């Protein structure tokens, strides 16, 4: 199923693009599994996701844990801890 992926801040810079549409295999059921799968897509992806603990996630624009399921999700965003305000 096609999934819209968004990247922000240094995650975007390391990957070299702000968004992409991917179709992970059905075995990818959680955010953590999606990160593992994305990290295997290119050396840039691998570098961006090297330190998993620094990666925050929003599934369909809601902050989510790495353990969260992604079934039915349309948009998953990856970014560092936020620094607004």
């Amino acid at each position: 199923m096609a999934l819209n992926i968004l990247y922000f801040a240094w995650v975007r810079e390391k990957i070299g693009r702000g968004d992409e549409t991917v179709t992970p295999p059905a075995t990818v059921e959680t955010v953590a599994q999606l990160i593992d799968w994305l990290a295997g897509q290119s050396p840039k992806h691998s570098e961006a996701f090297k330190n998993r603990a620094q990666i925050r996630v929003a599934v369909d624009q809601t902050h989510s844990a790495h353990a969260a399921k992604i079934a039915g999700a349309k948009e998953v965003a990856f970014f560092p801890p936020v620094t607004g305000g």
Partner: protein
Amino acid sequence: MDIRVQKDAFGIGAETDTFAARNKTSGAICTFIGQMRDFRGADKQTGEAIATMELDAYPGMADKQLLDLATEAKSRWPLDDIAIIHRYGPLKPAEAIVFVATASAHRGDAFAACEFLMDWLKTKAPFWKKETGPSGSSWVAALESDDDRAKRWEKT
């Protein structure tokens, strides 16, 4: 409620007047303004000068997140109104990054809600600061102290 995520600069005096005019019968109004600092890190004396800042944002989620925060604040305190304005894009030193205003019959509620909104916004609103100075550009690191401040408001 007035929740805005915008690229354009805004006037904090004008926004304060607008908010007060909309809440004439509220005895207490509290506002917070976060301004762009012109130095790196926490110490004005030792921090390198910052020339510009770029504020990256996740626009759709930012609107939703700020609205969720305002709704949560309204459920916790008796508030007459809330305004939140947050910039994104390029910023110059001394420009306002964020404006939060709360109106209530009582000052304790106005203060608490305003501080709560800022503390949660700091750890939940999807914005990222990139500072540029003489030694180059770098992304601002999140502060552990911000996490600690946000945790104070968690319900047990």
